């Protein structure tokens, strides 16, 4: 039965009891590693909805039992199309990117601290003040992540509905896979090396104090990590602008505040080091050097090996120049 069913593109079952409905879903779910979705509107669909990975209930003619048992509920069957093609696609893209980005940004920061340990006779001194280390995940890099994870979209609703096959990018794991993870980690490694070693070589035999150099490392890490996010943001609205640039400004303010507390060893360090021209030159070259590989890889892959999503983005931008062919969708959609 299973072999026959999987050979067909559509299978119709009629006169099915509720338990058999659940059994059909279980058959597919247990024998393959595909995701299953069940949609139904009546009480006899409840067991099927609960058996599937994603259960969708319709709130309508036959009452509310299906809705209470489901993960998502809608008003009409045709709303399934935007649920999958639009919201499902957006959620996949956002989640995939956010998970990869979170690993990357924490790895970058921790690796900078790690390289310093090599030069403190392997004792675990942190040049970056403890307050800054704490605030790194709480304040310096958290808010842009959250805002981008909520608001960023790679393609607009109309494009996704016009080209349903774009949904296939999620099915092929294009936004979250091992290759992307390894690439992310390599970028974290490179950027941490840049952030650590450029000031190291510049200040190697000078009078620089631990707190001053720590401030430079902290500020450089935060700027680099946020620049990486900025380069990957697809849709810039005013909220994202405020949070990304505002976070960098908040970091600078926090560094000033921390270095104005006389009890801490870093008292006055940021005022002193920001007055030197070398600090600003180093900041500029650190940010640019860290970003060059990412930018080059992005430019190369987006132009020479474009993914469908990339072509979709270009279609959106240049639709006045090219004729957009709407592929056939039997249901009338609302946009």
């Amino acid at each position, binding site marked *: 039965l299973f072999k026959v069913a999987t050979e067909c593109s559509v299978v119709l079952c009629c006169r099915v009891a509720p338990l058999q409905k659940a059994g059909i879903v279980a058959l597919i779910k247990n024998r393959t590693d595909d995701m299953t979705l069940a949609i139904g509107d009546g009480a006899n669909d409840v067991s099927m909805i609960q058996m599937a990975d994603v259960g969708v209930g319709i709130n309508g003619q036959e009452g509310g039992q299906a809705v209470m048992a489901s993960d998502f509920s809608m008003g009409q069957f045709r709303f399934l199309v935007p649920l999958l093609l639009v919201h499902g696609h957006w959620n996949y893209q956002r989640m995939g990117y956010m998970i990869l980005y979170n690993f990357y940004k924490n790895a970058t920061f921790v690796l900078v601290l790690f390289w310093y340990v090599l030069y403190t006779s392997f004792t675990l001194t942190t040049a970056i003040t403890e307050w800054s280390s704490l605030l790194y995940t709480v304040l310096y890099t958290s808010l842009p992540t959250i805002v981008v994870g909520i608001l960023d979209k790679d393609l607009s*609703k109309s494009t996704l509905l016009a080209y349903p096959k774009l949904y296939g990018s999620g099915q092929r794991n294009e936004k979250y896979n091992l290759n992307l993870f390894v690439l992310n980690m390599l970028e974290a490694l490179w950027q941490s090396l840049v952030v650590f070693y450029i000031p190291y070589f510049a200040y190697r035999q000078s009078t620089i*104090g631990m707190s001053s150099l720590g401030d430079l490392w902290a500020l450089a890490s935060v700027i680099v990590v946020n620049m990486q996010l900025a380069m990957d943001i697809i849709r*810039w609205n005013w909220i994202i602008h405020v949070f990304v640039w505002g976070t960098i400004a908040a970091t600078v303010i926090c560094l000033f505040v921390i270095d104005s507390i006389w009890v801490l060893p870093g008292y006055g360090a940021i005022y002193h080091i920001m007055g030197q021209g*070398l600090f600003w*030159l180093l900041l500029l070259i650190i940010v*640019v050097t860290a970003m060059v590989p990412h930018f080059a890889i992005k430019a190369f892959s987006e132009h020479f090996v474009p993914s469908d999503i990339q072509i979709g*983005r270009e279609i959106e931008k*240049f639709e006045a120049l090219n004729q957009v062919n709407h592929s056939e969708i039997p249901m009338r959609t609302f946009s």
Partner: protein
Amino acid sequence: FIFDFFNARLHFGCSRMQMYPLEMEGNSNPKTTNKPKYSKFTQQELPACKPLLTPEIVIAAFALIGALFVPIGLASLHASRQVVELVHRYDASCVPVDDKVGFIQNSRTDKTCTVTMTVPKYMKSPIHVYYLIDGFYQNHRRYVRSRSDKQLRYKSAAHLTSDCVPEGDTADHAPIVPCGLVAWSLFNDTYTVRVNGVVTQVNKKDIAWKSDKNNKFGKNIYPSNFQKGRLIGGATLNESIPLSEQEDLIVWMRTAALPTFRKLYGRIEKDINANDNVTVVIQNNYNTYSFGGSKALVLSTASWIGGKNNFIGIAYLTIGGLCLSLAMGFLVLYMVKRRNFGDPSNLSWNR
């Protein structure tokens, strides 16, 4: 392609999302609709910029970085070349015997040592005199914590020496001011500078940060019980001078970031001409021999880039050159393999 390129269409526009929801069929009665109130934010239709990387932007970005960085690199290299720096390592030559540790720890040996240097170029005042120490981990975790900042500022906090162990209290449990290993290991070599035989004064005022002198070290705190234990780690302090004026101590207590570091000893406020002989009489008191460190004397002029350091100039030139070559590379690639933007025939199911 060339035509497009020179048109320089920067496809960086912000667009208004012109997507308002169509009315659903059969809905018009406000009493029976459950539709939530429309807002751009909740429907995720905020107006947004959708920047896209086009060949023009990529090449322009790399070329701009290259064009900006190469001059900065050249200016930095030039500034670094202008700095005149004399470095003379003296720890090995100043102790002629084999048992260096014993020599240094013996308080009766004569530790005077004379060092001569010839100035290669004209040095404009102020000329900074530094001591350069190598192999001294001022950033060691236990060392960095071994101090009491509260004690340095407030007389009433003199007893707060818990972090300073083992240099916290004397044998009779009296608090040491300033306590801790950082203060205990204060550098104590002294330098007397003669230029062409004439004694030149080294100004030891204002060598510490103003913020430290005013706010971190108290004006009414005097050293007490300092370096009175069995093990002498470094200099002794004049007990009648308050801590805010003990500038050598303040400079030393700003712990260095890396194991090779220099600290400001003083400034020479006269110019030194080329080919002048600078003779420095050193009191070689400080013990860097027991841990394999080294000491050196540095005379250096100042510039906006700090001391003599070619690294920043070389780094800028390298990155600038790399970006220019990437711009060239991308230009060639774009001319060789061109594709149209936004062409649906490139979608994977249409190819």
